[in-house]
Structure formats: structure tokens, C-alpha cells
């Protein structure tokens, strides 16, 4: 589901049901990083990050709600894994945005250098 479709079916999406916002939170990004290596149980995630188990569980709930992680049961354990497809649109957008911002600020940087060089020469 696209972000826009998502917003369409949740009239007033709360902060935590927004994919964009789900990854805007540094702790949640840390959890996503921990899941990059593969499927993990909550305990293993807690070992990888600097958060308590209740905090990790809370963030996992948010990430599951927006579809960024999925969960399956294996015996008594619940295993979480990353759903990278859901990150793709945001990743693509971010990459383009970062590139465009950097291009503009790099041109500003070059121009500032040029001006200062001219100043030194005069």
C-alpha cells in the first residue's frame, strides 16, 4: 500500500500509524537496523539496541502497524523481520531529496569559495 493510499483509508492518521513518522524516530530506526541482519526474537533485538524490553516491544508494535516489520510465531517465540519493500518508496524519495539538497548547497559552497578567492586576489 502506498503512503498516500494509507492516508486515504485512515482519515486522520495518528503519528504512529504513518510510515514516514515511524522511521523519523531514532529508536525505531535502531530497531530496523538490528533487523537488517535477519529475523530476530524480541530478546535478541533488546541485546542489539540500547533500549529496555518494554520500549522495544512498544516500538515493534508501531513498526508492525505500518507494515515495516512482520511477525511470526515459532514455538513460544515470536520472530520479527524487516519488510524492506515498505521502505522502498521512502528510501527512493529520501535519496533524491538528499541529492537535490546537496547539489544546491554544494553550488552555494562553490560560489562562496569563488567570492572569497576573488576577495583575496584584490
Amino acid at each position, binding site marked *: 500500500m502506498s503512503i498516500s493510499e494509507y492516508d486515504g483509508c485512515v482519515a486522520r492518521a495518528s503519528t504512529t500509524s504513518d510510515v514516514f513518522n515511524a522511521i523519523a524516530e531514532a529508536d525505531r530506526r535502531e530497531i530496523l537496523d538490528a533487523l537488517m541482519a535477519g529475523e530476530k526474537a524480541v530478546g535478541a533485538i533488546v541485546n542489539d539496541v540500547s533500549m529496555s524490553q518494554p520500549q522495544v516491544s512498544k516500538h515493534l508494535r508501531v513498526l508492525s502497524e505500518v507494515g515495516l516489520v512482520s511477525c511470526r510465531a515459532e514455538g513460544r517465540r515470536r520472530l520479527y523481520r524487516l519488510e524492506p519493500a515498505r521502505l522502498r518508496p521512502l528510501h527512493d524519495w529520501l535519496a533524491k531529496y538528499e541529492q*537535490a*539538497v546537496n547539489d544546491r548547497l*554544494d553550488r552555494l*559552497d562553490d560560489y562562496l569559495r569563488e567570492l572569497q578567492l576573488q576577495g583575496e586576489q584584490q
Partner: protein
Amino acid sequence: MTPNRHGSAVIEFPNELEIVTTREFDAPIALVFDVLTKPEHVRKWFAPFEDKMTVCTIDLRVGGNYHQVFVTDDGTECSFRGTYLEVEPPTRTVETWQFEGWPGVEALETVELHETHGVTKLTMRLAFRDKAGRDHMTKSDGQESSLDKLEDYLRSLLDAKGSVSG
């Protein structure tokens, strides 16, 4: 001179309505402020090389307006306008921002400069009035918006920054 800082902009999303970009420049604060706010300077760096800036007016005072228009290589006009709400040379400006391509979307832009040992740090904060405005930026997937529209979004955002500055 020190090696350049190309590609070093840091972009953060502190909440669902804001985008904050920071970048350092090896130049004194007064020069950076001028280059961000004087049309003769803005024309020199703001537009990508292939684009033409047809309008660049900046009335740098509280209540003053700015207007910037670009023509992209395929002939599309991108027009940005806004009004300065705060002007405190050389450290800070706050201005409204509107892009003609996104009717009804308004953002507030805050530009701050801080100099330490000859290095000036630029912080640009773009705050959308509501979530619908910010969503204009992130609707990047599939059927709903083509890549071209995304590029327009990006362009407008950047132009927002420029107008901030510019």
C-alpha cells in the same frame, strides 16, 4: 583553502511536519547571509546549471515579499513566493513559503546562521502548516505521482530553501 564539504548536508525529520537541513561553509557569517539574501548573489548559485532563473526579487524586511521563478529545461515554470516575518541580519530570517504548483500548501521557513572559528553553520527548518502539505513531499510511489511530479516537489522544496535564503 580547506577541502570542500560537498555532499555534507545533514537532513533530519524531527516530527511529522518539519524538515531540518544543516550544512557548514568555510566563510564568514556576513558573507553567507548576503549570498543567501541578495538577488545578485542568489542568481549565481540557486538554479541548477541547465535551468534559467527568470525572476528573483527579494525585499528583505519584515513584511517584504520575495518571488522566484525558474524555467526548467522542458519549459516548465516553477514559481515560489513568500513574505518575510523576521529579518535579523546576519543570523536569522523567517518567511512564509508557497509554491504555485501546490495550491493550498503553506510552509514556514526559518533560516539560521551561526559562525564558529570562521566556519558558518546554516540551519534551514521547513515547517508545513499541516500534514497534507508535508505529504506532498513524500508521495513518491507508483501510480499516484510520476517521477516528474516528484522532481517538481523536490524542486519546489529546494526553491523554498533558496527563497528562504534567497
